[in-house]
């Protein structure tokens, strides 16, 4: 199972990278979204998969899955949501002010500040 997940995570990273290298801001942000999905799944996979019951003591199981990676991912999800929403509003404002979403046109140089 871990091997399959590693391949899936690799695919998510690959697509995320390809999107981040594209021109449109929206696609870059979609890329970061995919990247964070990949990272979250990676943490979960590295903690080991399916080694016991849901981490609730009420289950009265012999063994539980590792609760620590889940706590880490929960934090990471919330933070990446905060950052993504900030980026999205930034992109939205960029469209409004500059009228473009093409990264090639959004270049600064010394002649136009």
């Amino acid at each position: 199972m871990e091997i399959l997940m590693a391949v899936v995570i690799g695919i998510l990273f690959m697509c995320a990278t390809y999107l981040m290298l594209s021109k449109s801001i929206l696609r870059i942000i979609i890329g970061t979204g995919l990247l964070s999905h990949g990272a979250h799944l990676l943490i979960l996979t590295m903690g080991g998969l399916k080694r016991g019951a849901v981490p609730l003591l009420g289950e009265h199981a012999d063994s539980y899955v590792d609760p620590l990676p889940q706590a880490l991912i929960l934090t990471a999800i919330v933070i990446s949501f905060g950052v993504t929403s900030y980026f999205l509003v930034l992109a939205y404002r960029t469209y409004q002010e500059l009228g473009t979403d093409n990264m090639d046109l959004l270049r600064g140089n010394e002649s136009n500040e």
Partner: protein
Amino acid sequence: MSLLHWAILSPFLLAIIIPLMYKYAKRVHTGWFVLWLPLVLFIYFISKVTKISNGTTIRETVQWIPSLNINFDVVIDGLSLLFALLITGIGSLVVLYSIFYLSKKKEKLHNFYVYLLLFMGAMLGVVLSDNLIVLYTFWEFTSLSSFLLIGYWYHRERSRYGAQKSMLITVFGGLSMLGGIVLLYVMGGTFSIRELIAQAGTLINHDLFIAAAILILLGAFTKSAQFPFHIWLPDAMEAPTPVSAYLHSATMVKAGLYLVARLSPLFAAEGIWLWLVAGIGLLTLVWGSFSAIRQTDLKGILAFSTVSQLGLIMSLLGLGAAALHYPIDDNIYIATTVAAVFHLINHATFKGSLFMVVGIVDHETGTRDIRKLGGLMSLMPITFTIAVIGAFSMAGLPPFNGFLSKEMFFTGMLSVLTLDIFNFETWGVLFPVFAWIASVFTFTYSMIIVFKTFTGKLQPEKLEKKPHEAPVGMLISPIILAVLVVVFGLFPNLLTDSIILPAASAILGDAMPADYHIHISMWHGFQPELFMTIGVVLLGIILYKTWPKWKVVYKPFTEKWSFNSLYNNGLKYMEYGSNKLAVNTMTGSIRNYLLYIFFFLIVSLGFTLFWKDAFSISLDNTAPIGFYELVLAVIISIGAISILFVKSRLTSIIVLGSVGYTVSLFFVLFRAPDLALTQLVIETVSTALFLLCFYHLPENFRKEERIRFKLTNFMISLGVGVVVTLIALSASSTKLFDSISQYYVDTTYTEAGGQNMVNVILVDYRGLDTMFEITVLGLAALGIYGMIKLRLTKQGGKKANENK
């Protein structure tokens, strides 16, 4: 702090007060407040002469940074004393001369004297320090003050160019020297020159020895304007003439000579040192004297002549170091070292006077161009006399001191023929030949200086001022120097016992017998040297007379093929190249930067993975693949890949949402209910935000198109994916230790009173994480609010109204 330390620091202290003097005593020329200090110092150093000539050395020390072995150690021996006397003696004369040279009304005198005092103190520090780091500190101070003095008339472009050039070249050398000093410390464990020399026998076998020698020589050669680093000196002639006389002929350019002489006992055992010092010195001598003839500016001639004379002394020092290889009493190479010291003194006297003469000519006629000058002999008789004495001494004519040192120079060069170490027998024969040719050129340009300026026809229409004799005050210093030239010429043994021999024995150390004595005399019989001098004079006169006819030999040496253009183009292309590099790499396109980052990530991680042989894959201890997981894995992969191919951005947003929901289904399958809940909610909100953003896309940019395929992008993304997969596989296959989570499982209820382990970890065990995660969300919310509400534009908020 001893008196000696105060002597070194006194110029710096005086430099602090001088601006006040300039401001509050405007009636008196500021130079008068400066003049007493070098005089007092000169007398102070004179008082040490008897003690030093008896063979004692004076050493004083003050702790500076004892933990790093850096202390302000000051040692006076023969060599240091000679330099200290030159610095303070010529310093006094130059200050006196500058009082009459620089106008009280027009010039910023406080700047001038502050820089000059700074230089004087630094130079004293260089020659008196025993600690190499302290020496280096003062060394860079001389570079800095020289830079300031060359750029004294900073409104002139040539001054700024010359100052920058000398700064770049001497600081390059200074930094190399620092490298050499550090290497010496690595080898010998001390910065003290004396202690290093005491270890010379063991250091020579060290691997770093040759590197240290070459680095230190780079420092000495750049400072002393040796070939091919001589190019800064002619451009430094933009400085006021007193500065040229002081720094660029008598003192600073001799700092390199001092360093070579000082470190000779340490390095002379190495053949490379001898070859480089003697060879480069000789090359500089020939090239400098050859180039001097073609100059038309008097200071230009003197600059190249300084270059060539410094080369002469350098080559004598190189050959003199051979004395350390022949431990016999009647050692001819000791005489070579003595000649170097003697010529060092002589050069300071006659070159100082010549510069002052040129300054007078410039001051009284308004030009230094020999094509405009001529016939000044009857108008300026005293200046003419001084010029004759200086130039004839430089040319090596009797009865002046230059004649004596030139004879000794020939003796030294002829002695190369008997040298049988380091393969000197093969090419050594070139030394006397080159030396003789260079002397012929020296004779020729010396004649040009005197006769083109003072004889011939007066051309009053080309001169800016009506020429007349200089004021008395301006003549005092050159007269004193010219008198010294004659006195040293007629009574050459005046200084041998008191100054020259102690200096030579300081250079040679143990190789010099204690009872060594030399008698310099004007007449030494019909030796080969005498016939060489006669040849020099004859050929020199012929060359001078026929000068217009053989000018053509300089044709191939055009400006295009000079070292100057090498330097200029070097600077130009360095700037051009770095600019090009910056423009090519820093394109301003985010895609390029991401490409660099990802490429480096792939290469470094991939390389490390295989270099350390870290990749491993193991199938044991993995969970079995269930049907649902397989289906979800296929869905999520298809979803992710299809984002790359869909045309519409709307579709890609929806597909991203589907990927997010699949992730939350994965969380369900992998037994993480809290994660699944959070993921579900957050994915919904994010998708809504994406849609909002999409909705606000400007109409004309809404044209939907697929991502254009780029091979580089694809390769990089593939690389990132593969590397991440490999690392994930290796990490999950090698478990080094068990998880600490058993503790949480055991204590969640007993310690924290909860049953949901994830939530207890979040708010109880690791509550700090949660607090700052809340902070992040709060900041994001505030930031978003600010971005939407706060609309200050360049027009001061006007645009904000339009947008409402």
